[in-house]
């Protein structure tokens, strides 16, 4: 089967890859581009471990077909930290112990960063509903909510991607 050539921007850099029509963005990120920070927990859009930001929206990379990434701007967990070091969301996750096994963490952070970009001062309920698409089996969500609250208190770092 002839492969499809895709040009996209991943974490600020222009990236090209070849894929087949039925391949997912998640499999390309993880297996073709070696960006294994984005996780697969279900492959069916139910756990959010594969959350990435695509064109300014959080999507489940397991539900995006790889050819749909043509011309898109994608940010994964590997793109959260910048020249100034870790993003406040990343620091807050470490400082509030919002991860236990850490498998859900990349997806939560991608979603949380997007939330704070849209709503810099979310209520607990807003945080919980924004993160409703992300499953964590380890923490009971308490410290994850606290991490997002803590990151929200960090000034000036929530510019929209």
């Amino acid at each position, binding site marked *: 089967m002839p492969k499809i050539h895709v040009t996209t921007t991943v974490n600020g850099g222009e990236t090209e890859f070849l894929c087949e029509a039925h391949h997912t963005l998640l*499999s390309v990120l993880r297996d073709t581009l070696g960006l294994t920070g984005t996780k697969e927990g279900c492959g069916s859009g*139910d756990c959010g471990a594969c959350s990435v930001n695509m064109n300014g929206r959080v999507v489940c990379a397991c539900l995006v077909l790889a050819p749909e990434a043509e011309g898109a701007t994608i940010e994964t967990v590997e793109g959260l930290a910048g020249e100034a070091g870790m993003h406040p969301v990343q620091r807050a*996750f470490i400082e509030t112990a919002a991860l*236990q*096994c850490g498998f859900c963490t*990349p997806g939560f*952070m991608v979603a949380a960063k997007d939330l704070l970009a849209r709503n810099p001062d979310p209520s607990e309920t807003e945080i919980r509903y924004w993160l409703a698409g992300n499953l964590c089996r380890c923490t*009971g*969500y*308490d410290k994850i909510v606290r991490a997002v609250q803590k990151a929200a208190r960090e000034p000036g770092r929530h510019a929209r991607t």
Partner: protein
Amino acid sequence: MKDDSQPADYRWVGKRLDRPDGADKVTGRARFGADIHLPGELVGKCLLSPHPHARILRIDTGKARALPGVKAVVTGADFPVLEDRPTPVADYAFNLWDQARTLMARDKVLFDGHPVAAVAATTEDVAQQALALIEVAYEILPHVTDLEAAMAPDAPLLHETMITTGVAPGPAAPSNIVARTMLERGNIDAGFEAADIVVEREFRSKPVHQGYIEPHACIASVAEDGRAELWTCTQGPWIDRAFCAGILGWEMSDLKVVATEIGGGFGGKLTVYDEPIALRLSQLTRKPVRMVMTRSEVLRRTGPTSGSLYRVRLGAKSDGTLVAADCEMILETGAFPGSPLGTARAIAFTHLDIPNLRLSSAEVVSNRPSVQAYRAPGGPITCYAQESVMDEMAEKLGISPFALIRKNAVREGTVSLAGFPLENLGLAQVLDAAEALEHLKTPLGPTQGRGIATSYWKNGGGQTSVSAILNEDGTVNVGIGTPDIGGLRASVSMMVAETMGVPYDKVTTTIADTSQLGFNSFTAGSRTAYAVGLAVVGASKDLIAQVCERAAKMWDLPPEAVDYADGMLRPAGPNAGAHDPVPLATIAAGFAKSGGPIMGKFTTDGPGAGPNFATHIADVEVDPETGGVTVLRYSIVVDVGRAIHPDYVEGQNQGGAAQGIGWALNEEYVYGADGRLQNTGFLDYRMPVAPDLPMIGCTLVEVPNPNHPFGVRGVGEVSIVPSVAAVANAVKDATGLRFFEIPMSPPRVLARIAGARAAKDPSLKPAFR
């Protein structure tokens, strides 16, 4: 050398420090099971049975083998036939033949999703096509997936020669009942005769899955000379090695198992599934073989924990003295024996002093996947039955659940009926702290209720070996053999830093592979902070003894004339002041001239783990229209001995409670009449999400365990034990109706309320009438 006593104020222990693997885990750098790739790797995939019970007549792999890109196909026939008996592995005994047949069927498939063959191919797509080309001829057999139906005399038999053990005389005919056990103290009949009030109830629960978000994943690489490496997301690389070597008939030194980062386990990653298959495929193809399960495979093939039927009878005098308890526990075990009866039995009524107590149990096979350990195996369902009956008894007596426990609390220094010593208990302190919570004063609305449950967990120790290296610059590398699932590296580094008197950030803790340390038991059984803590403190002291020797040599003093504290060595006693103090780093740097590299070790069988207790308090609201139950408030009070890293201790408890809330309200395996699992994804196997839960209060009570240098008890498991019962008691308090079956999912709650309304049940609370 200074004596062992620890300062009362710790420098590192008890602080909320950043975990050393935090940066890796928030940047995507941490490598989990499916993140490991090797050059030239093949993709391995299993073909799963669509039938719950069938004889395999023939497997034709010819067409699959002929597909370009397919490098190997294996079936059960490609693995050795093993003896059907328990094989000792450290202090465990595993039936490797049962395990071998769980991961690849022989002769019969015993559950929907039972693997019958596996392929290794160049790509995932080719592997999938190859699976579709494998032809399996089945003779379909009658199946049974229901616990009580499986016990019926005419039930289809999974194992035609299985005779129930533990009963005398043994039955003549085979059945699905694996074993029965009975423990008794006092005289149960006399006890109930003396009771003024008796509560007798039955409780049912369904199997639930551990629900770790990371599916099982491994990659195996076998060299031409037969030596092999295996990377896998496991809770116990040494146990995996024992399983794989045993199932394949290999020598242990030929197999190196490397534990990757692990995305949750909760007991579900204590065993092997694809690992021996990947090793066999790699052996045949001489290429690395990577196998990653899908979520539906995880749900169909792995876990879950047992469904259950409990019959509980509790007798009390009218003054609240408990005089007799009788608890029968019948647990599903899936296709092969291995249910958590031992641990279920160990907790039943253990926090209470009841003179006449009988604990009987039975284990039943059915056409479901073999059960695996799930956090406090058997604990939550035992506690659900026990604490529901205790709640009802307290109500009948007109006293609070706290008063009922206090009146009957187990006494210090006794031994439980299951044989566990009950010493240095923190039960009274837990009850004190729980009763003092503001939570209990919060008013409740007409559709709201509050539930309280208390339970015991025995906690584990177990086989552990560790290393500690003093580097040339005075920093320390610690090697442990227990995967870090929730902050273990942090707590180990903290305990080493505290013992060595060096800064936390000068200690690096690494998870070693099976070729680098002696045997290590799992990260499980609430044993790691305890037993690994014992070991790393021991290894730190070994290092201290060695640096004291080096300094003594330098100063020409006997080693005991050297004092070590806070990273400094000083001449002690009569020699005090004879030489200037020397920092640890100086001794470290001078190793080459003082006797060679400085490396410590410690091995232990981990004795003296301390039992603990937890009380959970749940407030719920029940929607009369939908039957939906919302948890409004939740508080945990738990005796942890000593919290090394309080954040992660709280996190364990909050996570355990969240799992229990899911178990109580939503989670269950649903099988169709066709014997197939119907909810094979997270959409239908619905675990709690963030909006389902409130903040979870956690009060850590610290009654130190004297057997641990810092006083640690386990924390991982007690966290889930009272949770289901607390929620069930809260739903009872809200509605007036006690639920004898979990999950209390909306349809079940609604039907129960409707039934009570129709029957004009006076116990139904007004808001639901």
